[in-house]
Structure formats: C-alpha cells, structure tokens
C-alpha cells in the first residue's frame, strides 16, 4: 500500500505532457551545460558567461516584440554586446573589467525595461525567468542539437583545451594556440546560452552552466569524470526541481536553479568534512 502510494507520488508529475517535455528539455540542457560548464569554471569564465547571458537580453526582447526568431535576436544581442565591450574598453582610464560591467548592466537594464514595460505583450517576462514548462518542439530540437554539437566539439577540442587551461603560458611552445582555444570556448558558451536561455530564462541560465560544474569540481580529479558528474548533478537537480515545482507549486525554473545551488553547497560541505 505504502509502496503504491510512493510509486503514485513519484509518477504523478510525469502524467502531464508539459512536465514530460520539461524533463526532456532540462535533461538535454543539463547534459550539454554540465559538460561545457566544467571548462567554463576551469577557465574562470563564469563571470563572462553571466555577462554574455545578461547582455543578450535586449536582442531577445526585440526579437520577441518584432516576431523574428529568438535565436537570431539573441545572436544579434551577443554581437552588439561584444562590440560595445570592445569599444568601451578603449575608453581611456576605463579597464576591461569596468567596461564589461558598464556595458552588461546597460544592456540588461535596457532589455528589462523593454520586457517589463506595460505596453509590452504578456509573456516577455519568460525571457527573464524562463518557462521550462512551456518549451516548444523547436526548443527541444535546438537543445538536442546543442548536445550533439557540444559533444563533438568538446571531444575534438579536449586535448587543446586541457593544454591551454593547465599551462596557458607555455601552450604555444606545446603547439597549441591559446587564442583559438579561448575563441572556440567562448563561441560554444555563446551557443549554449542562446539555446538554453529560451527554456531557463536570462537570469537562471547561468545556474545550470556554472553550479553543476562547480559542485562536480569538489569531487573530481580529472576533467572527463568531472564533466560526467556535472551532467549527472544537473539532471538530478532538474528532476528534483520539477518534483518540487509540482508538489510545492513553485516556479519550475527557479526550483531547479535553487536545487543546483543546494547541490553545490552539499558538495562543498562534503569536501570540507573529508
């Protein structure tokens, strides 16, 4: 009787096709982001990833307002952000760090202003906080495509990314270009953000990219197992977050993000206790 109750409780959320689609989306994104996130944290690019995610918001909002595909809008937003940062960094007496801060805050504020304006159609808030329960077939196809692209790219780049990440100073002497490795990684991060932001939202997308990798780093001594662990942590937090959302009535994306942070805290505490 008790077992039947538990089985019922466990299976209940998945009777809804929306939840099943959300599970598929978060599984695909967690696998892709978990693997990529390990490189993001190893290269100390977490702040850059967050900046990119925030900077593409105006592009997403304008795309939603004008009816062009969000992917195109986001890509244009990234391009504008990159150019703006490059230009701002040339202003005398402003360092690159400050330039990134000023440009990203400006762009994010502009995007939020457009998205939350009373005259904007409803639903644009989804760009900020995501709508994992409302993913479309296109979103799922893009997430699946992202998994394939990242799997191939990270497999091909693995050795070179290791060389540059471990010993940037001498990478050239080892026949590996740090510039190309950095550029390849940033392109992959931008691609992942563009795809993931549609389901998870502009504010929460970085959580799935950084938190699982940061948690996995506490228990991993090599990159490949760390990538697998990060993907598993992301999937587990995704499943648990959907349960939490179903039974507690909380926002699905925020529940997943919160549990990703919990996973990090648990991993850090476990390491501290060892």
């Amino acid at each position, binding site marked *: 009787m008790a077992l039947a109750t538990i089985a019922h409780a466990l299976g209940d959320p998945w009777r809804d096709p929306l939840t099943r689609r959300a599970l598929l989306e978060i599984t695909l994104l967690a696998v892709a982001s978990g693997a990529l996130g390990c490189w993001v944290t*190893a290269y100390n690019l977490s702040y850059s990833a967050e900046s990119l995610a925030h900077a593409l918001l105006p592009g997403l909002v304008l795309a939603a307002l004008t009816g062009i595909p969000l992917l195109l809008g986001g890509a244009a937003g990234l391009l504008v952000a990159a150019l703006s940062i490059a230009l701002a960094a040339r202003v005398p007496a402003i360092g690159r760090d400050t330039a990134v801060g000023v440009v990203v805050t400006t762009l994010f504020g502009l995007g939020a202003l457009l998205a939350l304006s009373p005259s904007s159609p409803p639903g644009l808030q989804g760009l900020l906080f995501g709508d994992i329960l409302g993913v479309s077939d296109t979103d799922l196809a893009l997430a699946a495509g992202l998994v394939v692209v990242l799997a191939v790219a990270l497999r*091909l780049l693995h*050795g*070179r990314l*290791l060389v540059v990440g471990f010993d940037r100073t001498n990478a050239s002497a*080892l026949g*590996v270009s740090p510039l190309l490795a950095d550029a390849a990684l940033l392109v992959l991060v931008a691609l992942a953000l563009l795809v993931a932001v549609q389901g998870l939202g502009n504010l929460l997308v970085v959580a799935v990219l950084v938190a699982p990798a940061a948690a996995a780093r506490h228990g991993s001594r*090599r990159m490949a197992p760390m990538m697998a662990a990060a993907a598993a942590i992301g999937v587990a937090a995704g499943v648990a977050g959907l349960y939490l959302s179903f039974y507690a009535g909380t926002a699905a994306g925020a529940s997943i993000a919160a549990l990703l942070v919990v996973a990090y805290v648990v991993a850090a505490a476990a390491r501290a206790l060892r």
Partner: protein
Amino acid sequence: MPDRRALTVTDVSAGYDGTPVLTGVTFTAHAGERIGLLGPNGGGKTTLFRVLLGELRPMSGTIEGPDRLGVVPQTERSRLDFPVSALDVALMGSVGRLPWWRRPGRAERRAAREALDAVGLADLAERSFGDLSGGQRQRVLVARALVQDARIVLLDEPFTGMDTISAERLEGLLDRLAADGRTLLVAAHDVDQARRWDRVLCLNGRQVAYGPPDGVLTREVLEVTYGAAIVELPGGGGVMPAHHHHHEEE
C-alpha cells in the same frame, strides 16, 4: 666528424616595447650538452627563453635550431587546482603534433606512459597533478617535454623549491637525457651545481660569458653577472650569489 650543433645563437638582442633588456647573446649548443644559464632575476634568462621558444621576436641577431623546443616551466607556477592527472600532463606533449581533429590515441598514451616511466613516475600516472610533491611535478613536466620529443629542452629554474634528494634525482634524470643526445638549457641560480655541467652562459642584461664552467665561473665573471652580490664558500668551495647559496626546503 659529424656536426653536432643543435642550436646557434648569433648576436641576439631582445626586449619589450622597443627597449632592449638583453643584448649581445652569442653561443652554440651541441647535442648532448647541459648548459646552465646563470644570472640575477631580471638578468634576461626568461627573455632568452621566450626568444628561443619563438614567443618574442629578437630585435636583432639570428637563431638557427629546430622549430619547436621543449619547455619545462617552474612547477610553482602550475595550476594545482586543474583537474588533470600526471598522465594527462605528459600527454599534453603530444597534442600540438596531432592534427586538430585527432585526439591522442593509443600510441600517444603509450609514449606518455614511457615518458613517465623514464622520469620514475610510472606508478603515479593516474595521480592528480596537484597531489604530487614539487619534485614529482617537475619530473612530470620533464616527461611532457619527452613526449614532445624535443631535442632541445629549456628548463626554467627546475630546482627551485626542491629538497636535496629531489634535486639530486632530477639532476640525475637530466644527466640521462643529455646522455641520450638531448641538449638542455637550464636556468638556475646554483653556481656550485653549474660547475658540474658542460657549459655555462652568464647573463646580466647582456652576455657576460659563455664556455666550460672552469673558464667561466670565476670570481670576476660572477661579480659582473650578479653585480658583486656574491659570497665565498668556506673551504675553497667557490663563490655563489649571496641570496641563493642554499636549497630551499620542499
């Protein structure tokens, strides 16, 4: 008599932003030679390495040698938090030689394991790099240069921070590599150790001297090299820089 010249540097000057920091470097290194680079911090050792590695274009002069040299950086500057094993680090020596679409395969892994075996670390291949001792990490980086199959290897102060036993073990390894025909350029501070090598290059913003240690490591040359900051060892043990006359403990 075969030509055993491995590297010929002729009147090389180098610097940054148009300002030379090293001038008049001229020397020839032969296969199998162990060459010590002595000089104070800022004397030009790192600049010369950067020129030899092709990272810094010389302001004048010529360099004749292989396109790619092996490099063994200071292990103290390694990222100990990076999730790599000793085998991963040794394998890095093969990555640059492979086309971009190829991952290191069985042959490369075998070469990396052989290199770790050669430096006496076969048993620690799977150990995390950050968990190794300073001396072990230095030998892993030597293994990486072996996997590169570099005939000339530049070592940047490899003995820094090592205890006496680790330093002796590394020195024995370098002797074996030289006996195998490799040319080693070792930036160091230990004048006493440099006396055991084949040649010594003294730098202090310019080339002060180059040649066999007996002829080069005189009080006069060392005073010019280190700006008179040298001490005399008791018992006729020679002279060495005042702030580097002992091994630091590991």
